[in-house]
Structure formats: structure tokens, C-alpha cells
């Protein structure tokens, strides 16, 4: 591979400067002239009939410009199953149902107006678990489907399943079989910047909406589909993405508050801003799906897995968002983490009156990984095989196709696990007698080359050159903290041949940027890099074509000026014109030159000089390029759970050493190690940042975080009682290592790894706890209370 100038180097990311200066503008900081403030009134019941909504007092409050309910607006549905309503009519199905909204001239007046709205309810019995939801005579959360047909049960009509090989034969072939039931909790994404949007119509009734989204183009599609509900036909929507205060999946769907801001903007003719405060963010924004997983695996006498059976049940909540599609990604570890010949996977998802759930980093992978990687340890124990050796026996190999049809190209899982074991001094650390200390490990298998869950997994890019050698990048992927702008800036600089300072990234705006499906599935850098290489190549070709005729005269000028400064200089014999016509140019750090030409300074033409020569002449032109990249992956058949959904796969392993206080149940992390096959390190600093950050989220997932509810009401909607790791929780050594397998599908060989870092954290820690004190907690989070309960149970069993 030719020498890289910027890729692979630690170069500070370009967006940091404005962020540390307080100059970056998040949705919280934006305003528009004449802007109104929107506020939503949420339901006070988990399940109830709406008898009456009285908005008269709110309407009379001075400063209130509009009050809307489902009773003074047309019906407006949204959500991929169209089972949600922007404003609720007749019935509320969860505590955070939107029953009314106001727009007022100040935030204070909007809040006061909300308080003046009286809603009369008739409470209905509620359903708060999948178990209750699937009972024979359970009350129906939705009586009718979106087409108006009666519904017979509370199952969400999505199907994700997989069956390969012969499960029964696999069971027969197994010498050892272990089953286990596991659960994961609701998690709040807990972005430091809360959700919000500003909607504004122009006088042609085209909408512009600034919103905290990861899917500007899908959002555009959703909002375009929404405008006819307002009586607007054939109108356009422009989605502009401000600086995002984190996202982690919260921006993958469109939300009621966005539609409500649009509705209020239309009604009032003014821009309307709705921003959630922290309480609303916790109580009224969709969290991460919870899960219950039953897993059974078997292995033969040599430790080779012979079958795997996984059944997942999910509590969907009252309406459907991407949480209901978590099983699509659960299929990845379920079918492809380790080599298993006979697999059965099935997911059942139920409506309940709990809060409905959306995407979050990992998107189902951590949920199943938790069950799978714990079960691997349990199976290893029964088989009498060390858990690390057990994993190595079943390790994925490169250039193999998994039962789901995933074409694994590069795969350094063996190296990753080996490195984790070495770093933990595995054999010795597993036998720390009498110290309540132990080590554990877990691996991961995730998408690394995009993830086709829509018809298109594509992304586009426009590159524009100006007269000064600056290049402007329009790309639809969003920077949400993960470092996409770094990849864009350095990638364009690398691929085009200019200095990073000359690369400018335009704001994500559906008016100006080409389409991108969304920044999810760890696809950001993978897509950006690949489309950059395509677009930059195109632009270079255009530039070199122009240079064929223009380069010689510019080189001449340079030579004249050079000779003036160096009168004794004698130029080497070289026919510039003849060489230029061949078009064999290169552009490096903003200087164009003929390859194989003598290395003379006057044979370097500065890019801006060339561009002005191209532009300022008769029949002049300006250069730009556009490319669209859609990766070589497939949209799986979800009925079969089969299809190569990614162009490459990210693998890795994590290990933990823990110490448990058996009196207080506290788990102290002594150290963690994480070794990931990343294809290629694009920027060591941002990659490390992603891994540390994911690990911290994994830590919270494992030990601290949980949304607690009682009959549908969230009991801890604030940071006081929803605890995410602080700087002190992350006070342990973390040994990160990146293995470069140079995958051919990836830009410069890279794989997408934004989500990998939190997939195996929970079982790595839990397996370490088992090694330390011989107990397992199967329900996340592993709190001190649960550790003590497990220890007490163990003691009871031992004395019996």
C-alpha cells in the first residue's frame, strides 16, 4: 500500500475547536426570528380512555398562539408500523402519550399553558410485561391495526427468525448441554444534549426543520409523508442537522415532538422550537429495548458446538419504533458468533403499556451477546474445558460463510482472544485463591461494512473545488461525536491530495447533500471513506484532464520566476508539454506534478493556481464531482434470517479482572482489556475515544444503569436516580489493542467499529465475577443487591 499522509495518524479532530470554545451550536442554542416555544402535555396514565380535554383556559392565556389536540387536528399517524399517533385521541397507551401541545411566545408561558390544560381520563387496566400481554384474555393495547381491521392479540406484527441445519440432530450429537434464561433492562441513551427540533414553513409552505437526527433523509421522507395530513400536497421538506449533543440511536427514528413542532409551525405561521428538558428526556423519549433471552447450547466431547437455540421476548411498549427490529441485529451473534452448525432463533415482541423503545448503540447485539457469552462459559464449565480454550475451539475463521449467509472476509477473532488472554495472564489470574478476584472474557461479532436493513445502504458525496484550492464536502452522514468529520476531512485530504486545512465540511442539509440512509450500524466511517475515495478519484481525473493542456504554461511561468531568482540555474531537459499530454499526474498536499518528471520545484503547480487557470478563461469551467456508494451487501430475508447484510464484519474480545466485596456485593473493576479487529486504524485518537466511550456505556449497562418502572410510570427520570458512570467509575487501567486485517471492502482497509466496544462488556465482567466468587447474576444490571442475594442462595444450597 502506498504511503498514507493522514490516515492512520493521530490528528486532532476538526470539530473540537468550536466545541471547546463554546461556539458549536446545538439545537438548544439555535433560534429563529419570531420563534415560538412549544411544549407538550403528556398522559398521566399508562392506559386510559380520554374522556375530555379542556384547552379553553390555555387558549386564553396571553402569549399562547396555538393549542392543539387530536380533537382539533386531523389524524396523523407515524412510525414504521404506523401504529403511533402524533396526538392521542380516545385512548392513551403509555405514560408519555402526547395528549396536547401549545406554542407560546416564551418557554415560561408555554409551561404555564400546559398546566392549564385539563384532561379527564377513565383509567383502564394496564399491561406491563410480555407475560401479561400474551395471556388469553389480555386487554388489547391496540384494538385495530393501522388499516382499521380488528387485532386479535398484543403481538407486534414483525417476524425475525432463523433456522439452519438440524436442531434435533445437533442436540443428539451433544455430549453437554446447558440452558439459561437471561434478561436485560431498559437503558436510557442519556445523551448530554437533549432531544429537540425547530420547524419553520416558508411562504410556499415548504418546511425546514432543524432537528437532532441521525437519519436526515429518512426523516425528510417521513415529514414529506406527514405534510398531506395538514392538507399540504406536493410540498418539500428540508432537514438540517445542527451540532449533535450525542445520539446513540435516539436520532434513528422520527418522534412525536418533531411532528408536533411541524404542526404548531404550520398553525401559527411561525418557527416553533420544542426541546426536551432532562426530565422529559428520561420520561418521554424512547429508551433502549429490554429483553428476555432463553438460550440452549450443546457441544460434543471435544468442545465443538453442535447446536444453539435462542428465543427472545421483548417488551415493545405501546407503539413501535426500532426497538422492535433489534432481533434483526440479534441474528448476528445468534447465528454467527463462533461456528455453530445447527441454529434456531426466534423473537416474540409484545405491545404493553410501558414506554415504547427505540434504537441504541449495539441494537440487540449486546442483549444476545449477554446470554450467549455467559452460556459459553457455563457450557465450558460442564464440559471441563477452560472458557478461553473453549472459545478458541469454536472460533470464527476468515473467508467463511456463516449459517446466516454472512460472508466473513477478514477475521482476526483468534488473535483478539489470544491477546486478551495474554494481557490478563489468563491461567494464573483464573486461580486467584481466597481473594474474591477473577477474570473473564467475551467476544463479539458485529457488522463492520455497513448494515443493509433498508433497500438502500448507500451514501453519496459531492466535492466542490473553488478558486483557491479549497474543497467543500457535502455528505449526508452526521457527526454525533463519533468523529465522522475527522474521517471526512482526513479522508478527503488523503484521497484527493490536499492538506486537511483546505477541506471544509458542509452542514448536513437535505437540500444540498446527497442521500445517505443514516448514521447507524457503525457505518459512518466505512461509508464516508468509501464514497470519499470514489468521489475524490473522479475529481482527480477531471483535474488531471484539465491539466493536460493547462499545466505546461503554468510550469513555464514557474520556471521563469525560478530562473529570475536563480540566474545560474540550468533546467534539466524535459518536454513538459509532451509529458503533460499523457495525463500522468499526481496531486499531493495541494501541489500538482507529473509523475516521473524531474523533481524540480518549478514543476510543482499549486492547486489554486491551476483551478484559476481552468476557471478564468473563455469556455472556462469549475470542477466538482459526485459519487454514490452502495456497499456489496444484501438485504436479508427476515423470514429466513438469511442474507449477507454487511460487506465485512467486526470481531473482537474483551476481558475483565474484578474483585468482589462479598459483604457489600460491590464489584470493583481492577482492569479491562479490549482487542478489536478494526481492519485499519483511521485515526488512533478518535478510535480509542470510541472504544473507551463504548466501554463506559457497557460498564453502565452491566453494573449501574436501569430504568425502573411501576405500572408503566418511570420512577427515576433524572440523573439523581439513573446513574451513569462518572469519571471515578472509569478509574481502572484499560488496555486497548487494535488488530489491522486490512479488509478489502473497507476504505483503506477499515471496518466500522462504533458499536463493537459495548457488545461483550457485560458477559466479560459477569464471567469474571463467576470466576471470583462462583455466582452468576443473569439479570442486568448486576447490582450489589443481586450479588448478595446470589451469594446467600449459594450458601443455602451448599448447606443443604
Amino acid at each position: 500500500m502506498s504511503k498514507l499522509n493522514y490516515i492512520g495518524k493521530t490528528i486532532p479532530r476538526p470539530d473540537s475547536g468550536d466545541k471547546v470554545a463554546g461556539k458549536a451550536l446545538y439545537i438548544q442554542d439555535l433560534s429563529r426570528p419570531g420563534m415560538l416555544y412549544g411544549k407538550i402535555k403528556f398522559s398521566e396514565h399508562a392506559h386510559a380512555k380520554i374522556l375530555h380535554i379542556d384547552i379553553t383556559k390555555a387558549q386564553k392565556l396571553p402569549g399562547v398562539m396555538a393549542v392543539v389536540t387530536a380533537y382539533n387536528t386531523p389524524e396523523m399517524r407515524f412510525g414504521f408500523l404506523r401504529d403511533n399517533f402524533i396526538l392521542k385521541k380516545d385512548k392513551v397507551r403509555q405514560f408519555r402519550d402526547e395528549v396536547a401541545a401549545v406554542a407560546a411566545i416564551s418557554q415560561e408561558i408555554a409551561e404555564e399553558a400546559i398546566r392549564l390544560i385539563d384532561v379527564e381520563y377513565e383509567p383502564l387496566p394496564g399491561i406491563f410485561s410480555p407475560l401479561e400481554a400474551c395471556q388469553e384474555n389480555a386487554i388489547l393495547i391496540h384494538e385495530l391495526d393501522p388499516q382499521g381491521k380488528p387485532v386479535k392479540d398484543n403481538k407486534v406484527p414483525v417476524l425475525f427468525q432463523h433456522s439452519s441445519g438440524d436442531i434435533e440432530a445437533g442436540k443428539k450429537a451433544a455430549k453437554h448441554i446447558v440452558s439459561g434464561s437471561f434478561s436485560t433492562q431498559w437503558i436510557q441513551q442519556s445523551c448530554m444534549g437533549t432531544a429537540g427540533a425547530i420547524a419553520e414553513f416558508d411562504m410556499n409552505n415548504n418546511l425546514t426543520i432543524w432537528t437532532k437526527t441521525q437519519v436526515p433523509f429518512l426523516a425528510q421522507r417521513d415529514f414529506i409523508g406527514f405534510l398531506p395530513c395538514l392538507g399540504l400536497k406536493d410540498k418539500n421538506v428540508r432537514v438540517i442537522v445542527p451540532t449533535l449533543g450525542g445520539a446513540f440511536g435516539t436520532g434513528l427514528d422520527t418522534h412525536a415532538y418533531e411532528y408536533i413542532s411541524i404542526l404548531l409551525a404550520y398553525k401559527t405561521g411561525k418557527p416553533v422550537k420544542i426541546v426536551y428538558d432532562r426530565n422529559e428526556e428520561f420520561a418521554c423519549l424512547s429508551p433502549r429495548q429490554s429483553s428476555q433471552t432463553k438460550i440452549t447450547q450443546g457441544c460434543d466431547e471435544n468442545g465443538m458446538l453442535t447446536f444453539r437455540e435462542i428465543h427472545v421476548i421483548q417488551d415493545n411498549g405501546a407503539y413501535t419504533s426500532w426497538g422492535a427490529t433489534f432481533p434483526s441485529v440479534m441474528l448476528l451473534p445468534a447465528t454467527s458468533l463462533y461456528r455453530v452448525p445447527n441454529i434456531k432463533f426466534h423473537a416474540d415482541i409484545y405491545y404493553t403499556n410501558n414506554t415504547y423503545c427505540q434504537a441504541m448503540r449495539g441494537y440487540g447485539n449486546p442483549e444476545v451477546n449477554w446470554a450467549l457469552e455467559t452460556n459459553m462459559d457455563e457450557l465450558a464449565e460442564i464440559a471441563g474445558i477452560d472458557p478461553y480454550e473453549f472459545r478458541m475451539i469454536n472460533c470464527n475463521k476468515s473467508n467463511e460463510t456463516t449459517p446466516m449467509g454472512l460472508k466473513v472476509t477478514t477475521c482476526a477473532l483468534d488473535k483478539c482472544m489470544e491477546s486478551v488472554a495474554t494481557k490478563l495472564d489468563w491461567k494464573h489470574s483464573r486461580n486467584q485463591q481466597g481473594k474474591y478476584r477473577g477474570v473473564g472474557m467475551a467476544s463479539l461479532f458485529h457488522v463492520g461494512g455497513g448494515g443493509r436493513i433498508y433497500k438502500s445502504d448507500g451514501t453519496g458525496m459531492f466535492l466542490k473545488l473553488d478558486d483557491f484550492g479549497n474543497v467543500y464536502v457535502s455528505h449526508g452522514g452526521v457527526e454525533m461525536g463519533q468523529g465522522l468529520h475527522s474521517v471526512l476531512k482526513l479522508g478527503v485530504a488523503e484521497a484527493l491530495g490536499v492538506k486537511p486545512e483546505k477541506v471544509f465540511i458542509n452542514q448536513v442539509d437535505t437540500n444540498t447533500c446527497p442521500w445517505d440512509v443514516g448514521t447507524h450500524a457503525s457505518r459512518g466511517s466505512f461509508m464516508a471513506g468509501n464514497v470519499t475515495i470514489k468521489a475524490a478519484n473522479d475529481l482527480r481525473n477531471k483535474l488531471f484532464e484539465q491539466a493536460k493542456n493547462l499545466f505546461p504554461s503554468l510550469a513555464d511561468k514557474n520556471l521563469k520566476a525560478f530562473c529570475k531568482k536563480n540566474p545560474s540555474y540550468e533546467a534539466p531537459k524535459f518536454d513538459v508539454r509532451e509529458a503533460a499530454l499523457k495525463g500522468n499526474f499526481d496531486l499531493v498536499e495541494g501541489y500538482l506534478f507529473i509523475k516521473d518528471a524531474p523533481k524540480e520545484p518549478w514543476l510543482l503547480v499549486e492547486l489554486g493556481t491551476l483551478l484559476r487557470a481552468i476557471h478564468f478563461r473563455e469556455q472556462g469551467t469549475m470542477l466538482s464531482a459526485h459519487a454514490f456508494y452502495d456497499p456489496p451487501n444484501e438485504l436479508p430475508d427476515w423470514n429466513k434470517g438469511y442474507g449477507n447484510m454487511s460487506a465485512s464484519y467486526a470481531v473482537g474480545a474483551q476481558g475483565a479482572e474484578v474483585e468482589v466485596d462479598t459483604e457489600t456485593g460491590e464489584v470493583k473493576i481492577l482492569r479491562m482489556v479490549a482487542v478489536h479487529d478494526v481492519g485499519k486504524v483511521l485515526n488512533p485518537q478518535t478510535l480509542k475515544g470510541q472504544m473507551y466511550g463504548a466501554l463506559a456505556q457497557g460498564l453502565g449497562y452491566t453494573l449501574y444503569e436501569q430504568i425502573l418502572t411501576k405500572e408503566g410510570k418511570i420512577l427515576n427520570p433524572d440523573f439523581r436516580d439513573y446513574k451513569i458512570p462518572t469519571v471515578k467509575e472509569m478509574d481502572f487501567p484499560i488496555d486497548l489493542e487494535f488488530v489491522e486485517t486490512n479488509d478489502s471492502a473497507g476504505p483503506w482497509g477499515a471496518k466500522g467499529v462504533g458499536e463493537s466496544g459495548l457488545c461483550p462488556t457485560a458477559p466479560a465482567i459477569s464471567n469474571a465475577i463467576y470466576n471470583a466468587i462462583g455466582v452468576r447474576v443473569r439479570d442486568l444490571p448486576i447490582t450489589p443487591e443481586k450479588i448478595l442475594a446470589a451469594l446467600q442462595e449459594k450458601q443455602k444450597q451448599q448447606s443443604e
Partner: protein
Amino acid sequence: MKREISFNVNSQQMKLEVESHLRLIDLIRDQLGLTGTKEGCGEGECGACTVIVDGKAVNACLYPALELEGRTLITIEGLLEEENKPSVIQKAFIDNGAVQCGFCSPGMIMSTKALLDKNNDPSDEEIRIALLGNLCRCTGYVQIVESVKAAASQIRRKS
């Protein structure tokens, strides 16, 4: 009721009429238009609104605006040096990967400044005590702590 208060903000002496029920964060963001200070929770739990009053790091969301009377306030905007240059701490954050989404960064930097102004050679433990009240969801804190150490080292070198 409105009252006029005098205070110093980012080395500028100011007089402002402030409504009695407002918090310092409202004064900073809405009246002074300094949007670098962020409201992350409004309850003193996340530290995104950290500013420095009379040399001490405080949560602007819990500080009554009228209490600023006669006091000295520094916000993130006040750290920028002449000719648009980032301060040592800000440069350390940029150079050491401490910034991802950036929402927590202003608050994190103000807590860092309050620490390093008092103690330019803090131990790892002292850094974590100073930053305990600043939550970050993106970075996992590792590169933030590294940045504080780098800034401290730079400050010691300069002094």
C-alpha cells in the same frame, strides 16, 4: 420583580436588570447570549452548566441569578485568549481527544480551570475529584483525564 445587579463577567464589568426568579444559567444564556454554557439537567447532577464564580466551580443551574451581584463570573467564552486563540486547557482538550459530541466539554473545561488555577500539579485522584460532577456519555473520561494532565504539565512549564 427586576433588580439591577453589577458583576464582572469574563473580565468585563457589567450592569444588568435581572428578574428575581432567574437562575444564573438563564442570565448567562438568555440575557448575555453566551450559549457556551449548557443546560444538561437543570438539577445540578450533570455539570454541563459549570461556570466559575469568585474562583469556584459552581452549577449555574442551581445558582440564583441575583446572587451574582458583586461577584466575578467566568464562562467558557472567557477562556479564549487574544486573537481567537484557545487557552492552554482548551488546546489540551483538542490535542488529546477529550472532545466527542462536545456538549459536556465547556463544563468539563471550567471544572478543569478551577482545579488548575488552585493546583497546577494535581494527582490522578485530585483530578477525578474535581471532575466527579461533570458527566460525559461519549468519551469514557480516559482522554479527558489525559487532557487535564497535559494541560497541567503545560501550565507548570509556562510558570
